[in-house]
């Protein structure tokens, strides 16, 4: 609560040339939300992200609380079916060499006879978790490094910046692959790895803001009043760099989902039988000719999710950018 008021009062220096009363209202969470609501594209973004997150939450509830309740219903097990005739069914209304699509499996079944819609549904859980966790790791790491680096300057700045530059210098998919080879191939390391690769992005963003904020009068005043450096960074410097970071974080969630899908496609990440979109696409490669729709739907799921975060990020940017509002 305290930081929010801080950012509201301190942020007034950012928007110049407007009335004092109006400036007060131009920053802060509530104002942002009002702006976002007014923007049509941002609203679409919020609805999409909200829907996907809801699906992810419901999927988790089903998985953990009801122990695959819904999943059992739509999860066709080839083991239970002696004839194994219902493998690789196409979506409703289509036909392939394995038969015709049925309403029971609206998007058809995969090579093991499992319902694709059901697996997409559960894949959401992984995509959303990974997106948020990886971004959170990058955000916290990058913000701390960037803030410390920009605030102190000097050799601390030099050392930290060289280290993050080096991390940035290895193409990040390659870096995450090497990282996961070294530490482990499962999903948690994918999150950490992708998080580490996004540290330089947030670092750069925060540092450039901090360097300009550092010279502001109120920081000088806080220092003169004997406020500790750590408190100045946490209470004043970081909250004042909040807006661009929020935008970047939203976009970064989409990027993280894309990278983790790519990693799963290569076999790094969620291991079978856990359903993840990248891994479904990887499995579909062997059935592209008899069942092309098997490759189609997981990709569309990724596309819709990432578009949602991108639209939301763009909307936030418009809402938070004072130049456009004027």
């Amino acid at each position: 609560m305290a930081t929010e008021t801080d950012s509201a009062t301190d942020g007034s220096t950012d928007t110049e040339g407007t009335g004092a009363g109006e400036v007060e209202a131009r920053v802060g969470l509530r104002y942002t939300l009002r702006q976002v609501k007014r923007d049509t594209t941002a609203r679409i973004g919020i609805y999409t992200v909200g829907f996907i997150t809801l699906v992810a939450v419901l999927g988790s509830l089903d998985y953990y609380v009801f122990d695959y309740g819904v999943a059992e219903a739509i999860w066709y097990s080839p083991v239970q079916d002696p004839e194994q005739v219902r493998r690789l069914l196409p979506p409703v209304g289509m036909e392939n060499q394995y038969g015709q699509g049925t309403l029971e499996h609206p998007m058809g079944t995969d090579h093991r006879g499992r319902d694709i819609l059901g697996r997409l549904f559960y894949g959401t859980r992984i995509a959303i978790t990974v997106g948020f966790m990886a971004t959170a790791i990058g955000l916290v790491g990058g913000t701390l490094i960037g803030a410390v680096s920009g605030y102190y300057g000097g050799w601390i700045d030099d050392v930290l910046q060289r280290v993050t530059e080096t991390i940035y210098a290895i193409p990040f998919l390659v870096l995450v692959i090497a990282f996961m080879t070294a530490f482990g191939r499962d999903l948690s390391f994918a999150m950490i790895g992708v998080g580490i690769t996004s540290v330089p992005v947030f670092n750069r963003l925060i540092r450039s803001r901090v360097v300009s904020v550092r010279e502001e009068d109120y920081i000088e005043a806080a220092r003169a009043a004997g406020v500790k450096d750590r408190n100045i960074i946490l209470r004043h410097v970081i909250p004042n760099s909040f807006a661009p970071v929020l935008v970047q974080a939203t976009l970064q969630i989409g990027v993280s989902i894309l990278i983790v899908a790519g990693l799963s496609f290569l076999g790094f990440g969620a291991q079978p039988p856990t359903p993840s979109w990248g891994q479904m696409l990887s499995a579909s490669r062997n059935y592209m000719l008899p069942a092309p729709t098997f490759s189609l739907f997981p990709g569309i799921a990724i596309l819709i999710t990432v578009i949602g975060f991108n639209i939301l990020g763009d909307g936030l940017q418009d809402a938070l950018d004072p130049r456009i509002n004027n």
Partner: protein
Amino acid sequence: MGLLRYTLWRLAQAIPVLIGIITITFFLANQIPGDPVEIMLGPSPAQEQVEAIRARYGLDRPAYQRFLTYLAGVATGDLGQSIYYDRPVLEMIMLRLPVTLYLTVSAFVFAIVTAIPLGVISAKRRNKPADHVSRIVSLIGVSTPSFWIGLMLIIVFAFYLGWFPARGLPVPWASPADVRGAETQLQVLRTSLYHLAMPMVALGTLQMAQITRIERSSMVESLQGEYVKLARAYGVSESKIVRKHAFQVAQLPVITIVGLGLSTALGGAVLTETVFEIQGMGRLIITAINNQDYELIMGTTFMFGVAFVVGVIITDIAYAYIDPRVAYGDET
């Protein structure tokens, strides 16, 4: 003069970054669980055999010694020996690197050639239908996984329409004897371009979308500049303003984004090569990982880093060439 000094200075700056990359890759490769010697010799090898191999590849020495040896090796152009293939790592990389560079550079050419007109049209007709179409295309482009685009292209253009081959990528300078169905160098080039089309689009789409977005916002800003107003006041035609006055200034952020996009593109090449079964650097690093081939993993990761650093230096120099203020400014 300024440009030459700037180039040299940028090259010198890259050295600590390269040493940093080697440190990171060495550290990671050392963390890899499992014993490469075991993989090489099978489950229960003779003790002397194991020790001989360990001594031969220097695995019996402490890590810091091996690191210094490796660093010295890299400085003299020796990336070590692949344990699995028993060949010099550099030699293996040099076989694969051209394929990956061919793919990546083509993807960027595709991206730039399509993105710049899209972005310029979008900025010129701001908030008109053409702008909306271009913005939606670029939004979809930044949100689509490149490997999925690859899969869809294969299904449609290779399986259904049969226009392009689904796998492999012969380089245009390969000898006709190595390329199936080609007798002359010209036919090699033709085959190569046919193979290139789909991977190029798959890898380039993301870059295309990103460049379109930057080009648009940069052009919008540039078209609002004072010099554009002045040119208009002088009665310069609108198309000439766009072509001559606004366009050049607007290209600076585009160059930056091309440099940064290299990181994504080189990483994406790993995925694209997997989808199209192209024998490039991406496949090499995946096989190296599957074989737990330390030296080869380190070598390929390092080379990916080198490719990116060199790419960024080239874009920086291009930037300095277009905007001489960079080269003459304070060099910090």
